[in-house]
């Protein structure tokens, strides 16, 4: 039920830029999924108790095992210069690597405090790489809240890996973005059926599978928030294949079509490969679209997935977008999606949360996509909400998940309908 191409997309829509209080995680949060994706990597945040508490709170119920991330908490004596922070860091890393001999990649992750005191983690990573080579490679990036929001942490992490990727002249396709393994396997399966290969992934599940890169590498982004990684790969000579992001039947088809065109896949083969999964996706989306069709949606900024998702929900699920907020708008990467998104919604970048809440209350959307700090308060005001974080922690890409993606948005509306005869909410407290 994909709509026709819009007469006017949002490519030229003026962007409402705001700054103020932001209800968005910092980039450290990406560690929560990155450490599961890269099974031999350890993420060591150099920061404060707040950083450790954030990771723990965002990780929620994942306290099952000794995690592959931790925080080296700066103490008073580190700040007062009574001890050399670099020496302290060396000691903690030595201990860590001694206890975890399975670790092959170590990321030193900068935080707000380490950035403010200008602790040079790049120098530390270089020094440790020499010391622990060849067994462990040590890299650094910043996940600090003064520089990154939420998914930008993954971007910073992947961008830090690009300069150390081996060089190659091979003609290869590189898929960029951390995907759940099952989803990544589906994408690799589709590309293989199209006769495209070899295909590599960044990040790789294990250090040994790290891809190479060079002037004959072409790459496709699977996540919309990878601006720095995009730039870093281009600096290595790789070429980007711009496409809508692979959410929904249409997004997946257009994403695959772009790659297929690059690899000269015959149109008949392309149609034959995608026909069945696309039909399945459309069928599954149609089920959820019964609930979503005709409903309005308002996105608070969170993961930078907002514009592609608004494109999916408006074009394939019949929703109307009122405002599409994104923490950061990367125009180049977002161009194909913006062109498909019919004009109408406010496109906003950044956030002043109280002003945006006022707009949402005035618009009374049928569904509001927002972070965990806002969801229950808005529900208590009578607005149905969808936690944005679920969109990052759930397999939602490509054909086989398209129905699940639509269903994530439909569920809060279905739940409201089911509970409509319950006694109304009383003013709490």
């Amino acid at each position: 039920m994909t709509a026709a191409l819009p007469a006017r997309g949002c490519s030229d829509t003026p962007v409402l830029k705001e700054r103020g209080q932001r209800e968005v995680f910092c980039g450290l949060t990406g560690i929560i999924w990155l450490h599961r994706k890269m099974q031999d990597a350890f993420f060591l945040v150099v920061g404060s108790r707040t950083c450790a508490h954030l990771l723990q709170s965002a990780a929620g119920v994942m306290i099952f095992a000794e995690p592959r991330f931790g925080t080296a908490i700066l103490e008073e004596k580190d700040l007062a210069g009574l001890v050399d922070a670099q020496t302290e860091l060396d000691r903690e890393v030595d201990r860590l690597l001694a206890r975890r001999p399975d670790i092959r990649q170590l990321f030193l992750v900068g935080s707000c405090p380490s950035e403010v005191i200008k602790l040079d983690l790049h120098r530390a990573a270089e020094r440790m790489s020499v010391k622990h080579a060849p067994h462990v490679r040590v890299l650094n990036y910043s996940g600090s809240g003064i520089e990154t929001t939420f998914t930008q942490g993954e971007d910073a992490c992947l961008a830090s890996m690009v300069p150390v990727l081996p060089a190659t002249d091979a003609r290869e396709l590189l898929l960029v973005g951390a995907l759940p393994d099952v989803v990544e396997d589906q994408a690799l399966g589709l590309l293989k059926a199209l006769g495209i290969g070899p295909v590599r992934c960044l990040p790789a599940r294990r250090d040994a599978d790290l891809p190479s890169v060079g002037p004959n590498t072409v790459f496709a982004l699977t996540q919309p928030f990878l601006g720095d990684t995009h730039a870093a790969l281009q600096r290595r000579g790789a070429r980007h294949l711009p496409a809508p992001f692979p959410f929904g039947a249409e997004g997946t088809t257009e994403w695959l079509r772009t790659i297929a065109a690059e690899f000269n896949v015959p149109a008949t083969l392309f149609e034959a490969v995608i026909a069945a999964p696309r039909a399945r996706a459309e069928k599954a989306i149609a089920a959820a679209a019964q609930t979503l069709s005709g409903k309005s949606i308002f996105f608070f900024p969170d993961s930078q997935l907002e514009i592609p998702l608004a494109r999916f929900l408006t074009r394939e699920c019949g929703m109307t977008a009122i405002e599409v907020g994104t923490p950061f708008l990367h125009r180049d990467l977002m161009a194909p999606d913006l062109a498909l998104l019919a004009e109408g919604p406010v496109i906003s970048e950044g956030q002043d949360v109280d002003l945006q809440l006022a707009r949402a209350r005035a618009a009374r959307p049928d569904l509001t996509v927002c972070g965990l700090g806002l969801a229950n308060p808005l529900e208590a005001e009578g607005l149905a909400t969808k936690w944005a974080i679920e969109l990052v922690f759930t397999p939602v890409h490509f054909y086989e998940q398209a129905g699940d993606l639509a269903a994530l948005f439909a569920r809060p509306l279905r739940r409201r309908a089911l509970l409509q005869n319950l006694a109304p909410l009383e003013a709490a407290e």
Partner: protein
Amino acid sequence: MKLTLWTYEGPPHVGAMRVATGMRGLHYVLHAPQGDTYADLLFTMIERRDHRPPVTYTTFQARDLGGDTATLFKTACADAVARFNPEALIVGASCTAELIQDDPAGLAGSMDLGIPVIPLDLPSYQRKEGFGTDETFLQIVRHLAKPCARSEKITANLIGPTALGFRHRDDITEVTRLLADMGIGVNVVAPMTARPSDIARLPAAHFNVLMYPEHAESAARWLEREYKQPFTKTVPIGVGATRDFLAEVGTLTGLPVKSDTSRLRLPWWTRSVDSTYLTGKRVFIFGDGTHVAAAARIARDEMGFDVAGIGCFNREMARPIRTLAKDYGIEALITDDYLEVEAAISALQPEMILGTQMERHIGKRLGIPCAVISAPVHVQDFPARYSPQMGWEGANVIFDTWIHPLVMGLEEHLLHMFRDDFEFHDEAGASHHGAAHKPREQGAEAAPAAADAAGSMPAPDAPLSEVANDHTDPQTADILWLSDAEKELKKIPFFVRGKARRNTEKFAFEKGLTRISVDTLYEAKAHYAR
């Protein structure tokens, strides 16, 4: 620098948030970078609050540094006062803002905001969440409490409950009832439920009930000094402690102790024969000092457990917990390092853990049942039902909560008797827990521990140490299990296997044995029989 995997406490500004969010009509302007807003979700998700915490974050970015972050802070203060119209403002810095030294206190003080402004000095790199609650509440009380006449009737303030507290919501109700039975009214409950204007009239009460020393002891001491208000030292968690608390209230007020105990069931429940199986169960207790001290007393004197180990994560309570441990003939473990707690539990092999959500996960991994007694909290710690820890109903709740993770009396015996039944075996878990039934593979060795979807029991795949001697105790590290003895050990149900192994190894060590045979196992059993 110290490596931390999981933390028991957040930074001190989260403690300040717990005070501010518990109160009404107070607003907190926090000088902080983007990302520190994560703390909002603690309240809106874990506690299911239907309002955003009353906190404005200045949200400075890298490009603001070296520029004018001070103006950003002042604008945030002015906006917050205009938008939320609070009766008072608390101002402070998170860890990053502390480094840029903008002096929120001075900045806010220089503005004419028309309401009291209370500066907080919470050193993020030295102190933690508990200090944050205590210090914030002290500063609020110091700034806002005003001299006033004592109430005509005898009244008390209930001080200490905060947002995100372990069952604070229901403890307030229970303590209010206890006082009402003696004819004592409640003047103010604070921080939870209080407005700044309520803080002003704290001195009208005749005494303070210090519910949670972690959060309000400094304020209680200050009120005692400034306003001659005595405060209660006993925390009424458990039957004995509640009786002591009432006696203390009687002494403070000169009123006779009166209490309606008709709804108190713990004493009979624990004496009824079904509870016999609780006798001497070895428990390890860990959490905040207040709840640990209360739990230790209940465990020994009201449940008939054997307290094998205690400890707390908050250093402020180290001294009382160490003293308490001496009474129990054990060493206290004072640490906020999760791995140390795990090592202690692993070495002690208790039959049950009374701990925090962290210990619940340790228990899952080690195959040891756990009941949660203390913060840090989880969404499960905010049940919809009335579920206090304090007072008579609190004692009832504790009895139920603590026995829930255990395999119950007769079921335990049947598991001992028919331990080879392929359907009804120890790995299937307690029959009152909701996990899928797992028939044992025919002929398979007893290995993994039981499952429970609710999480209070070991996960289905929790590896139970199958090494006959896991070498956690250096004394017994050289003792080896002969294979027959090892097989016999595996026939013992999982919930007592750890104890059997430990006792046998200890027995062997004391006898100077280096090999454990089946005979050694049963000699040890006879030796430790009770």
